[in-house]
């Protein structure tokens, strides 16, 4: 394909990916589709979350494309790959070979799928589209706070990696690439299209025929060759993505190699997926009991699953109009790093919004209607009477009661002063009370999260009959 045409294709693909994230667009579904266009994400999310939604279907074009065209997407459409390649221009190490580096992408892919099967697809954060989304979604940010920009860090890290070691990500680490490769080789086998048998067999010859990204196929290098430091012979390439240095000497071209490789590959994949599954089961079990303090966005699945099912795409963090969702910096454990948590210091999760659920590509935050959201408890408020202006200082405060949209705070008279008490059965944990509590230096009323969000019965709420749009 003409380089110019390819450039146009990639530019338009990148533009399309950017569109839903522009500050003035409100296009929640499209935001989630950018991430879930990746079959790796879609499959992991569907397996891990045990649900299939319409957003899952966004991966279909790429599945079909990969099935017939192998990694054509990587070289012609991938927006992350395009940006990485542009960043490479400044790199001094353009001709560094990645040939001796192991195919960690396979590991990520099959471990990830194993983890997903166990209900804890932790590795979705390594998906390039999710990483890109983390960067792009910061454009939606309305109130600027440094913590929110954490979601852009993986992408910046990726660029840095690509400058230091060009193409390493695309060729050896990208699980989306590995997924396409797997689909592509499967497709080839099923369609009985064996490029090796039809081509003269020399790496250079194959190289000219295939899209450049095909150069990242298996068998060229393996752990063994990497360890043995097999001498490299560079192969010139017209492709932009690929300045592949294939370890040609280590690969006997032809069908014999191909079949033996497949067995190895199959066994390895199976073992990887199996170990992923075991790890997933262990991780999902280990999680319970931990991270009681964090509050998840409304609609989030059980805490045990959530930390795994979250792709860390940053959509919810940045789309929140109140700016109360932040990437976690460790309060929910090592597995919960960069997952979204709510912070009610200044603002709260009001009852008129469920945007975060709409933009989640993996259904870690389930889509919920506003009506459902208003009947979902995501946490429980607690009053520290020793800090409370009313209980401790005898002030006529009651700001918590004033702001509580669900009338979950009752007035108790104490020494002639109205004092607040939380009705836990009505408390949604929205944080209105905490955000407005005037006690200083510490808030007297704070919300704690819960392992599993709880539905509240509408009939328990006597005056709760506000009409929704």
């Amino acid at each position, binding site marked *: 394909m003409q380089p110019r045409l390819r450039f146009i294709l990639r530019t338009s693909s990148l533009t399309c990916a950017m569109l839903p994230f522009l500050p003035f667009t409100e296009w929640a579904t499209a935001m989630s589709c950018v991430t879930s266009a990746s079959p790796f994400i879609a499959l992991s999310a569907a397996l891990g979350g045990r649900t299939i939604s319409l957003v899952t279907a966004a991966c279909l074009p790429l599945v079909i494309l990969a099935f017939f065209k192998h990694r054509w997407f990587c070289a012609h459409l991938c927006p992350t790959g395009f940006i990485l390649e542009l960043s490479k221009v400044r790199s001094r190490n353009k001709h560094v070979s990645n040939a001796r580096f192991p195919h960690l992408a396979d590991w990520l892919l099959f471990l990830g799928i194993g983890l997903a099967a166990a209900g804890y697809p932790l590795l979705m954060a390594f998906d390039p589209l999710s990483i890109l989304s983390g960067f792009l979604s910061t454009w939606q940010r309305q109130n600027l706070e440094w913590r929110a920009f954490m979601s852009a860090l993986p992408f910046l890290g990726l660029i840095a990696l690509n400058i230091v070691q060009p193409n390493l990500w695309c060729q050896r680490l990208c699980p989306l690439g590995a997924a396409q490769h797997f689909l592509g080789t499967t497709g080839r086998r099923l369609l009985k299209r064996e490029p090796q048998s039809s081509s003269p067999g020399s790496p250079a010859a194959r190289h000219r025929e295939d899209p450049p990204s095909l150069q990242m196929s298996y068998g060229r290098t393996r752990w063994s060759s990497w360890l043995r430091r097999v001498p490299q012979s560079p192969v010139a390439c017209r492709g932009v993505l690929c300045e592949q240095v294939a370890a040609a000497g280590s690969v006997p071209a032809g069908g014999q190699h191909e079949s033996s490789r497949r067995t190895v590959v199959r066994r390895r994949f199976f073992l990887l997926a199996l170990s992923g599954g075991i790890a997933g089961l262990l991780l999902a079990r280990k999680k319970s009991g931990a991270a009681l303090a964090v509050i998840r966005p409304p609609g989030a699945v059980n805490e045990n699953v959530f930390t795994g099912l979250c792709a860390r795409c940053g959509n919810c963090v940045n789309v929140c109009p109140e700016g109360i969702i932040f990437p976690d910096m460790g309060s929910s454990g090592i597995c919960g790093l960069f997952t979204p948590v709510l912070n009610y210091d200044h603002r709260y999760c*009001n009852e008129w919004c469920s945007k975060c659920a709409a933009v989640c590509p993996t259904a870690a935050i389930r889509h919920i209607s506003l009506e459902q959201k208003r009947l979902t408890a995501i946490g429980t408020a607690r009053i520290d009477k020793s800090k409370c202006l009313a209980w401790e*200082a005898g002030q006529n*405060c009651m*700001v918590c*009661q*004033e702001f509580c*949209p669900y009338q979950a705070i009752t007035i108790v008279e104490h020494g002639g002063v109205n004092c607040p008490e939380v009705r836990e059965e009505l408390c949604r944990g929205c944080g209105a009370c905490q955000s407005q509590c*005037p006690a200083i230096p510490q808030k007297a009323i704070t919300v704690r999260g819960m392992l599993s969000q709880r539905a509240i019965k509408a009939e328990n709420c006597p005056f709760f009959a506000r*009409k929704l749009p």
Partner: protein
Amino acid sequence: MDNNISRRQFIIRTALGLAGAVCIPGAIKAQAVKSSSVTRLFVVHGKNIAKMLTSGITAMGGWKAFVKTAKPVVLKVNAAWASTPEQGGNTNPVLVEEFIRQCRAAGSGEVLMPENPCSPAKEAFGRSGIGEAAARAGGKLYVPAGRDFREIDIANGVSLKHAKVVSAVLDSECLVNMPVAKSHGGSGLTISMKNWMGSVSDRGFWHRNNLHQCIADCSTMIKPHLIIVDATRIMLTNGPQGPGKLDYPDQIIFGTDPVATDAYAATLFEKFKQQSFLIKYIKLAHDMGIGCGDLSRVKIDHIQV
């Protein structure tokens, strides 16, 4: 009769004249002071809000008494909560719309409506119907930003000595307070004096430092030219946000004395029927001389529409 007056007569007449010159204007002035010191309230009863507003304003002396041609009017409504007009959490949007309309018709300039809501502004202004009412009638409802506030000293403040207040409120030549009467967890009731909390930036300070005193202190500084209390429906419980139990007095209270209007509006609530001084800030404001909260000394005219 001799045309020349005697020395004695001259002295007597001069003395009388002087005494009259000194005393009569004083007496007139004393009379005038006495008549204006009688606090007056006009309570308009009825269902038709437009007519109620018209007759209330007429009773107060007509629009010309308040509105100066082409000068902006600053209207402080209560549009704090994302609740519907029927729930009584905010000023009645019909009243707001009618006010702006009549105000503009009387030749006023822009009607500015700074409001610092509690719920998210979009929801509060939208669901209360006040945003739409203002837009229809030509008022400018807005959330004051940082630069719209001005730090001022409150000379007579006991607890609240400084406050950041919306500049428009401080500078207006026609400042109108249009609160809704409803119950309030912290202060008992919120009517007109408490409504100014929507025009200051740091509400937290008030809650930490004797809320009632701060409400009274604030009213030593912010002096509205007209107070219109919406008591068409009043929220009896779960205030200020609600929803709660409602009562429908179908009244609009017009006055210029914030203490008197609040004291009268308080009597509409069962709990404070006998003693509006149970609301501490009304008592404090009365004692500080901000206005008259003793309803026996307030002349209340009831107008049926």
